[in-house]
């Protein structure tokens, strides 16, 4: 895992001190809210409905046990004993007090973490595949390049006042688990004719009020030219992105309005000028960063498989866990374990301080001290020996983290919605809870199903790309929910389509039941997933099921 060098450490320390002074000046009345607001946002501090909210960056979703314990300590000491893991692989605290924030930032700095660039019109936390560096299908571990992008984009003087926020996601595997085509820039590992690995670059994806699938701008950029290429894209965006209208300021609108061909020409022209300049990455530097992500000391294993069938009759909960929460690892005898933060009826993405500590202990003992946060708001132990899976599971049971539902209907992405968020139109969390309770007994039957809920059109809960998506709106003072189907965040990126008029909160579980019953009736076999059936059938049967 990457360790701060002197520059990183000094910078984070300096920023913490600086913000601490800014807080003091605000408290003493020296700074007005108008002056202070941009300063606090630059340090990840929002004001929500009930309190401040601090968003802490988890760079490319990677943590060690020390950092996780620190997050637990902060939750317990300065918050209400829990944290909320988000789709951008960050963690948010919902109840910090302004006077405590400098102390929290100091605590974070002591474990090489911070909240810088988690808000505002800058380049945000780079996200990646939660199985990066472990997945069996990976072409290359994307984390070294993610780290290089982090360094390049942190406090980049030219890109601190972009037209709007800017999000980059990167995956090293052909199966996209990082939703790269719904980011401002998405990177996917690619192999060229000579067999070298580089990057396919997508630009202009996004969710929000105008969801768009990113377009390919280059089919191959070698590692050494990646930063100049990204810089060229950012320069074009910075120059031409629309600053006149906040709703049209994201790069997706620029790409849409200008056309990908023109954008490509502009980027190529800029790229040609800076290609061989300071941003060109020497192999030595890439190697140096890559060494931080060296493979752990895996050992030859005798246990290489678990026979799930043997548990089906005797311990069905464990069988379910084995079936859904293990992901194939590149090393024989190892697996990546998803720790679901979606207990039936719980708040998606929330973990208590003691759960975080338990997970940290497991990472330390059974996963080479590595942890990941997934964009689906779960945690991952990336490198667990098959022989240790039962022990890990038992510890998860003891901490109420054992739900074997990864990828099933109750593994819901949900934004905080109107229970916390100042921008919300409707609640998300109670909807998620009602759905997971309603279908707890049937989720196995439905198979893989991505359900995503947002409390307003900003789409933080990714509803556009849910196989079933739910968007909360407010109509005449009541909450209504629009249902979309057919969205997909993977390499088959698709924006879901709205089925019709919204339904009330009470009606949502029943409406989903109608859709799912129709799917069960129409599917060709138990192997045809909801999204596959939808692609074959289109909207019509689902519309009919819902509205008659």
């Amino acid at each position, binding site marked *: 895992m990457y360790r701060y060098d002197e520059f990183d450490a000094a910078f984070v320390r300096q920023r913490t001190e600086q913000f601490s002074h800014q807080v003091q000046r605000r408290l003493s009345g020296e700074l007005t809210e108008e002056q202070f607001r941009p300063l606090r946002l630059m340090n990840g501090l929002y004001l929500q409905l009930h*309190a401040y909210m601090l968003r802490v960056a988890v760079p490319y979703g990677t943590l060690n046990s020390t950092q996780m314990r620190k997050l637990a300590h902060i939750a317990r000491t300065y918050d209400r004993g829990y944290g909320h893991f988000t789709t951008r692989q960050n963690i948010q605290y919902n109840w910090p007090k302004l006077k405590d924030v400098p102390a929290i930032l100091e605590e974070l700095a002591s474990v090489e973490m911070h909240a810088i660039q988690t808000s505002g019109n800058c380049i945000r936390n780079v996200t990646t595949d939660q199985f990066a560096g472990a997945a069996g299908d990976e072409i290359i571990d994307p984390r070294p390049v993610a780290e290089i992008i982090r360094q390049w984009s942190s406090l980049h003087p030219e890109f601190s006042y972009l037209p709007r926020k800017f999000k980059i996601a990167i995956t090293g595997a052909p199966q996209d688990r990082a939703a790269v085509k719904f980011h401002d820039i998405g990177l996917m590992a690619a192999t060229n004719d000579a067999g070298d690995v580089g990057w396919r670059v997508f630009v202009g994806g996004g969710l929000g009020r105008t969801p768009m699938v990113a377009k390919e701008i280059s089919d191959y950029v070698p590692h050494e030219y990646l930063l100049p290429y990204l810089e060229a894209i950012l320069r074009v965006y910075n120059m031409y992105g629309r600053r006149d209208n906040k709703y049209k300021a994201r790069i997706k609108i620029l790409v849409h309005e200008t056309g990908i061909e023109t954008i490509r020409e502009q980027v190529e022209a800029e790229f040609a000028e800076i290609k061989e300049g300071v941003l060109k990455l020497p192999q030595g530097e890439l190697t140096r960063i890559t060494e931080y992500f060296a493979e752990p000391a895996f050992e030859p294993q005798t246990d290489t498989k678990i026979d799930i069938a043997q548990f089906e009759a005797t311990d069905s909960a464990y069988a379910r866990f084995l079936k859904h929460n293990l992901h194939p690892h590149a090393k024989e005898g190892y697996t990546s374990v998803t720790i679901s933060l979606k207990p039936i009826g719980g708040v998606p993405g929330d973990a208590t301080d003691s759960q975080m500590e338990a997970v940290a202990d497991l990472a330390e003992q059974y996963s080479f001290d590595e942890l990941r946060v997934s964009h689906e708001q779960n945690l991952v132990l990336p490198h667990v020996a098959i022989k240790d899976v039962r022990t890990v599971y038992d510890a998860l049971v003891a901490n109420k983290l054992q739900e074997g539902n990864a990828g099933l209907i109750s593994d819901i992405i949900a934004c905080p919605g109107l229970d916390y968020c100042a921008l919300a139109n409707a609640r998300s969390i109670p909807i998620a809870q009602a759905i997971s309770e309603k279908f707890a007994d049937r989720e196995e039957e439905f198979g893989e199903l991505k359900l995503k809920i947002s409390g307003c059109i900003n789409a933080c809960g990714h509803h556009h790309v849910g196989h079933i998506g739910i968007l909360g709106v407010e109509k005449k003072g009541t909450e209504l929910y629009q249902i979309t189907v057919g969205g997909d965040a993977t390499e088959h990126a698709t924006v879901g389509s709205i089925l019709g008029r919204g339904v009330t909160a009470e009606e949502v579980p029943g409406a989903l039941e109608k859709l799912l019953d129709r799917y069960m009736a129409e599917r060709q076999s138990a192997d045809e997933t909801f999204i596959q059936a939808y692609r074959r059938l289109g909207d019509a049967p689902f519309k009919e099921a819902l509205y008659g």
Partner: protein
Amino acid sequence: MNAITANELISGAVVYLYETGEFGVDLQKAKLFGADEQDVRDASLEKTLKNPRLVSVEAIAVEVSETGTVWANRLREQIRANGPTVGGFARQTLEGADHVSL
């Protein structure tokens, strides 16, 4: 009818302007402005906006039930007044006192 609400600077807690001129966490004690008191309301709002201890200042629509309970009209404000509807969390408290001294 309207009440005036804000978030207190140090804790972020939701507060309301009381009859006494103080700001506190209890919507039931909020000073209410009738439809014919818009000038007074705007003057109070203006004054509140200048208070450095208060942020996100707003006038919100409220109603009073037959039994005298004050209700915020919008769900958003009901949630601000009562706390999140999930997770069993009480509202944010003010630091050290139940009202903001001016």
